[in-house]
């Protein structure tokens, strides 16, 4: 098995190479089979790795020495432990389903082979990020997924807006990456190594200064902020919806954006030593969760609602991390991967059926035309809202319980309110899209159809996972054994939950009641025509602010983008054009002018040359003589 470990990331890389180099000449079916096939193989190998880890503990596999500089020794090595094998299963499993779905979704796109090549490259990078046994491997994958995200957001590069969104995502991620990089530098400075095995087990004996640990943690968290779209670096994620829907599902909901969670869960030994950093993580997570949920209430683009929902759920995961409930965060990562991938893919199916329309105000009543899509979307909505016994119910409830136990009532109340908002905007999305009467054009109504089986089958599988995923980690008081927390306990210490059964039941009951009531209320609310979302221009007051995302993009524009633009213009016009170009062009012009003068010497008159020659020789001799 150990020899097969490198195959797990490298199979998608091979898929990328084959599809990228020869895909142009292959049929779409071949490209799809290669792209999905390598993922299936990786998934099966991941299952084998899972069994191996379960049987005999973590697998360490070093491929070769990446580089050695002075005392820094970096290996291209893989560490497959309980945490990474879990992420590998999510990435390859959900990734495989999304690949299959893409075969149907992208069928009419001429960039079909390119799309699959990028997707495979993404999976390769993501697997490196997860499986690396040192921080540099993680950074390598981290940058790789950023690149693929950029490539896929700007996939339809002829559209200027999409290109802008791609650049925005790339640049915002760079800001975070700087933090991560500095964090890694500091880890090297303190520990003399960046291999996980040299860092985490030794923290206890190092007796480091608390300030230094906090600084490292905060720097790592800045990286996580960028990748996982937290305040203040979240604005790229909603814009990233410019990419195709499968991309949104895979990269911008299920896998890449959880890299930040993975980073912190992986570094839990560091974070546990810094209460300040943990507190900061929790605050940022909570603020993001609430803020994004509020914005999600008034979005009318089906994918934008889901995007803000993703930001909000990621915020909730960071709250869990900040509370020390790392395993709960990973649990929510898992269930979120299921139901958010499901929701995005179902939204993609809707967009597919509507012929590219994304505005929910032009939809309505789709449940009759697209029954499968409707049912899976319903399951996804109920799962994310915390409908009893669905996956989101367990994972969110666990986070809320830990929030109550470690943060107190105030934290719990705010987190619950965020969960309430989640149920509200998801209910709104569901009812406005699938109930009521069709509001689109006559042509759209005619075009409306259920998606092909290649798209609905992955949806059904994900729907089953969204329903059953919660049973991975049933809490003790409901008779479960918290299987997943136990599985991860080798890497992530189990967080203590000091609540009596009574309180836990009460908390769960409250959350369930809230979810059910909100879902019911939104159903009543949006079944009335008068409550349907209106045009942006018709909105007033606070709703207008919300619909315009609190003008955060405009604020960033004024604070960062335009000043930067002005500075670069200054440097462009004055420093570059006038000074630097001035010097370069000046030298060129001077030489030309000198040449023009010297050219007159060469007049073709032999006597003239002779005089020059004699004069030169005489001068030479004179200098020698002197």
């Amino acid at each position, binding site marked *: 098995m150990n020899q097969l470990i490198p195959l797990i990331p490298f199979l998608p890389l091979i898929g990328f190479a084959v599809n990228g180099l020869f895909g142009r000449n292959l049929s779409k079916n071949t490209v799809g089979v290669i792209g999905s096939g390598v993922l299936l193989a990786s998934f099966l190998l991941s299952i084998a790795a899972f069994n191996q880890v379960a049987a005999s503990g973590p697998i360490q596999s070093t491929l070769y020495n990446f580089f050695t500089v002075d005392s820094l020794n970096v290996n291209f090595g893989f560490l497959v432990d309980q945490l990474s094998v879990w992420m590998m299963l999510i990435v390859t499993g959900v990734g495989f389903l999304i690949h299959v779905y893409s075969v149907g979704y992208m069928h009419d796109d001429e960039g079909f082979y390119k799309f699959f090549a990028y997707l495979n490259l993404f999976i390769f990078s993501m697997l490196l990020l997860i499986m690396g046994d040192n921080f540099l491997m993680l950074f390598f994958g981290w940058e790789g997924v950023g690149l693929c995200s950029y490539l896929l957001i700007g996939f339809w590069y002829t559209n200027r807006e999409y290109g802008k969104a791609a650049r925005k995502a790339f640049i915002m991620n760079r800001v975070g990456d700087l933090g991560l990089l500095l964090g890694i530098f500091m880890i090297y400075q303190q520990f003399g190594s960046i291999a996980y095995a040299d860092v985490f087990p030794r923290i206890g004996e190092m007796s480091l200064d608390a300030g230094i640990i906090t600084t490292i943690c905060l720097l790592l968290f800045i990286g996580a902020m960028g990748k996982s779209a937290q305040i203040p670096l979240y604005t790229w994620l909603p814009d990233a919806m410019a990419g195709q829907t499968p991309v949104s599902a895979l990269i911008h909901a299920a896998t890449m954006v959880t890299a930040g969670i993975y980073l912190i869960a992986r570094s839990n030994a560091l974070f546990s030593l810094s209460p300040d950093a943990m507190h900061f993580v929790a605050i940022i997570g909570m603020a993001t969760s609430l803020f994004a949920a509020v914005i999600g209430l008034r979005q009318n683009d089906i994918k934008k609602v889901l995007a803000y929902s993703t930001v909000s759920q990621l915020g909730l995961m960071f709250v869990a991390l900040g509370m020390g409930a790392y395993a709960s965060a990973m649990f929510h990562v898992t269930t979120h991967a299921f139901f958010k991938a499901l929701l995005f893919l179902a939204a993609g199916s809707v967009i597919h059926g509507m012929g590219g329309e994304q505005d929910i105000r032009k939809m309505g009543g789709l449940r009759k035309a697209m029954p499968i899509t409707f049912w899976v979307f319903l399951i996804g909505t109920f799962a994310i809202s915390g409908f009893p016994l669905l996956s989101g119910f367990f994972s969110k409830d666990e986070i809320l319980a830990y929030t109550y136990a470690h943060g107190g009532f105030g934290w719990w109340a705010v987190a619950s309110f965020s969960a309430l908002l989640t149920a509200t905007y998801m209910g709104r999305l569901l009812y406005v899209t699938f109930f009521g009467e069709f509001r689109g054009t006559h042509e759209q109504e005619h075009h409306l159809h259920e998606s092909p089986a290649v798209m609905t089958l992955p949806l059904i599988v994900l729907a089953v996972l969204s329903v059953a995923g919660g049973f991975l980690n049933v809490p003790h008081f409901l008779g479960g054994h918290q299987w997943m927390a136990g599985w991860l306990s080798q890497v992530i210490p189990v967080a203590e939950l000091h609540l009596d059964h009574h309180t836990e039941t009460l908390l769960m009951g409250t959350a369930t009641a809230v979810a059910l009531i909100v879902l019911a209320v939104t159903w009543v609310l949006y079944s009335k025509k008068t409550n349907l979302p209106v045009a942006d221009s018709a909105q007033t007051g606070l709703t207008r602010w919300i619909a315009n995302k609190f003008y955060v993009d405009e604020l960033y524009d004024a604070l960062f983008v335009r000043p930067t633009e002005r500075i670069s213009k200054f440097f462009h016009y004055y420093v570059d054009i006038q000074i630097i170009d001035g010097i370069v062009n000046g030298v060129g012009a001077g030489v030309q002018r000198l040449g023009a003068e010297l050219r007159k010497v060469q007049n073709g008159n032999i*006597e003239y040359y002779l005089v020059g020659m004699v004069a030169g020789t005489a001068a030479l001799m004179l200098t020698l003589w002197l």
Partner: protein
Amino acid sequence: MLETIQQIPIEHYVLYSSVLFVIGIFGVLTRRNAIVVLMCVELMLNAVNLLLAAFSTYLSDAQGQIMVFFIMVVAAAEAAVGLGILVMIYRNTKSTDISLLDKLKN
């Protein structure tokens, strides 16, 4: 004979050769007639020959005189070629004025 030559100080030879050489240069630079220019070149060569012979005698080293013979051979060849070119120039331009030969320009 040798003594007679050696009675004349070497400086005189150097000075005399230099004067001859400069006259030759002056002629090459100022005259336009190709024949005169060729003659001036011969003058310069012979100034050098004279100097070589003088030093050869003073230093009792035959190498200098051998060199003189070489130069005379080359000079003869050069004169032959030069005059040949001159004939061709004359046929083409009906003149021996070298300032007319500015075809290299442009």
